[in-house]
């Protein structure tokens, strides 16, 4: 049984078609890495799956554990178990990090018909998860992402994931802008959350992250579609050779689709 089945997905942003027939199937427990040149549609995929305004799906379908994901509001997608770790987490002054996270968890639980957590039980849960992410509880007392360093923001994303316990986590270039220590910490956090019934889609520009989070599958996203799939060796090949070699196999791709430069 699949967890996520994307079939022939077409999506537009500001009138421009970015995804052009993307298909991908993810089973429970699997880790899929999606790589690709700039402008291939990597971030668009995450935003479409999370339901961001302005991303218009023109064709295709996304099935998430038997539900039509595209018919759900963003908050409903979260409640059924989809989590997007943002490439650029937003700073929200005036909203306390802990308050926000408890409101989020309880809103999800309420949607699923589960009992809401009181503040005692919530704090207990948070303390357990803090250990996993090696986050100082000082961050919890601050406003959401406000004044956080780049690394702190990304770790906060993974920490939120640990608390919310999604079924499917999409990491949108979580490694970008991280130094090697921060990268390792993020990877350790993700690895601690791997389980037979939790899947990951890791969107990344660099092979480096995959040294620490070992994927089951690696896909190349170019020209708005998955054009190549393989195991982790594919990532190494891309690291060594770039994307140009794909032109021979896929004559339909324009040069710009593989170099990431504007057409």
């Amino acid at each position, binding site marked *: 049984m699949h967890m996520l089945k994307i079939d022939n997905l077409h999506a537009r942003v500001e009138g421009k078609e970015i995804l052009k027939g993307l298909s991908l199937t993810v089973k429970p427990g699997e880790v899929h890495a999606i790589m690709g040149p700039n402008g291939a549609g990597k971030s668009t995929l995450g935003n479409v799956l*999370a*339901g*961001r*305004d302005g991303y218009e799906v023109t064709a295709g379908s996304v099935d998430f554990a038997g539900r039509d994901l595209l018919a759900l*509001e*963003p*908050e409903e*997608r*979260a*409640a059924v178990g989809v*989590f*997007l770790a*943002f490439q650029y*987490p*937003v700073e*929200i*002054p*005036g*909203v306390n990090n802990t308050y*926000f*996270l408890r*409101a*989020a*968890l309880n*809103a*999800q639980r309420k*949607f699923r018909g589960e009992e809401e957590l009181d503040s005692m039980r919530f704090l207990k849960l948070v303390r357990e998860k803090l250990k996993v992410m090696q986050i100082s509880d000082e961050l919890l007392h601050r*406003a*959401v992402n406000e004044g956080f360093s780049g690394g702190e923001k990304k770790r906060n994303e993974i920490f*939120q994931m640990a608390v*919310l316990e999604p079924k499917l986590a999409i990491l949108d270039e979580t490694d970008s802008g991280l130094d090697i220590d921060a990268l390792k910490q993020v990877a350790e956090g993700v690895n601690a959350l791997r389980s037979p019934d939790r899947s990951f889609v890791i969107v990344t520009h660099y092979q480096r992250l995959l040294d620490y989070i070992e994927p089951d599958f690696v896909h190349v996203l170019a020209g708005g579609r998955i054009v190549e799939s393989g195991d982790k060796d594919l990532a190494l090949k891309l690291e060594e050779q770039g994307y140009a070699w794909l032109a021979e196999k896929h004559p339909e791709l324009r040069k710009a689709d593989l170099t990431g430069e504007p057409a």
Partner: protein
Amino acid sequence: MTNAPSPFVRAALDAAAAVPATGIAWLDAARRENLEAFAADGLPEGRNEAWKYTPLRALAQRALALADRDAAGTLAVDAARIALPGVEGDRVVFVDGTYRADLSSATTTGIALLPLAGALAQNPEPLRFALANRYRHGAADAFAHLNAALAVDGLVLRVDDGVAIARPVHVVHVSSGAQADTAWHVRVLLDIGKAASVDVVEHYVTLGDAAQLGTVVTDIVVRENARLGLVVLQDASTATTLVRRSHARLDAGATATVHALELGGALVRHELQADVNGDGARFDSRGVFALSGRQHIDTQLEVRHQARDTASDALWRGIADGRSRGVFRGAIVVAEGADGTDASLSNKNLLLSGQAEIDTKPELEIYADEVKAAHGATIGQLDERSLFYLRSRGIPLAQARSLLTLAFCRAALESLPNDALREHLGDLLVAHLPTGPAAD
């Protein structure tokens, strides 16, 4: 040129005829002259700069009788309706402008809470300066004239020199909402003795649905090295018209902090003026006005620095939804010789609907040297990226909107005198915010 007086003015003159004389010559003369000025000038019109954004055409057509004082004196008021968390000190209650001894309680030593009539009977002289005011700005002062002529009841609050009052004093103005097209008027004097300290919570509530007008004119003196915390919670019904003027004088070393939360009312005007008269005095104001439906709330803040090394900080937030209209004018005047003044003013506004409107006007007039002054005003919308971020974590749209709106106001509410009151006002604000999708 004389226009025929409007129904509003004619009704006020009729009401004044029924107000008994006090027998205090200077007071009766002041009432008469203020009434004459009101009759001559009428209500301010659109070309009056101070009232430019708050049209009174509809009010001018209403003939308002004075609220029935006998009924107001006996109306049942549920104590739970006026109770406020964190405000458990002495209490003074007015119903439709009538002092209610039965609902009021004053047991704290070092502070006197007298109904105006009682204070006048005791010794009118100390009240003379405030009550003999003639208000010289013509129609712009129409409601001050009206209040001076018609307010027979009120409050005189005095804190003795050197006394710190621990528990906030609760001053409640209840509009009965019992009878449409009636008006009430209250006069308030706060006199904070030298080096004294007190928190006062001025609280507006409405019981029924009938459309009433209330006016409150407050004169505040914060004497040398004294401290006043004034919290205004305006939670009147959306049928209520409220016009208030609060003037504070700060002597040397005095500090006053005003917090205002304006939630209710159909048409609300608040003129908040501070004369920072003594060296080293400080006047801070924080306010939130949150409007929806067809509400109109107009805040006119004016801080005048008249002495050396004085400071003021004004931080106001406005939220307008539906077809509401918010008006904010914030003026800082630094007089000649008020060197070393440090003044700042910030007014940020959030438009939650395409049909709502906010007019904001920060003003700075500086006639002194060595002054630090900053002011700014913005009007914006909720940040779409922040909304999506919250929703992507499972927080429903309506909750995400109110979370961000409350966050927008947080800076204005965080310095309230105690946690219980701060939480309560935050809850009231959230309950008042729209929960549905944007109206536009």
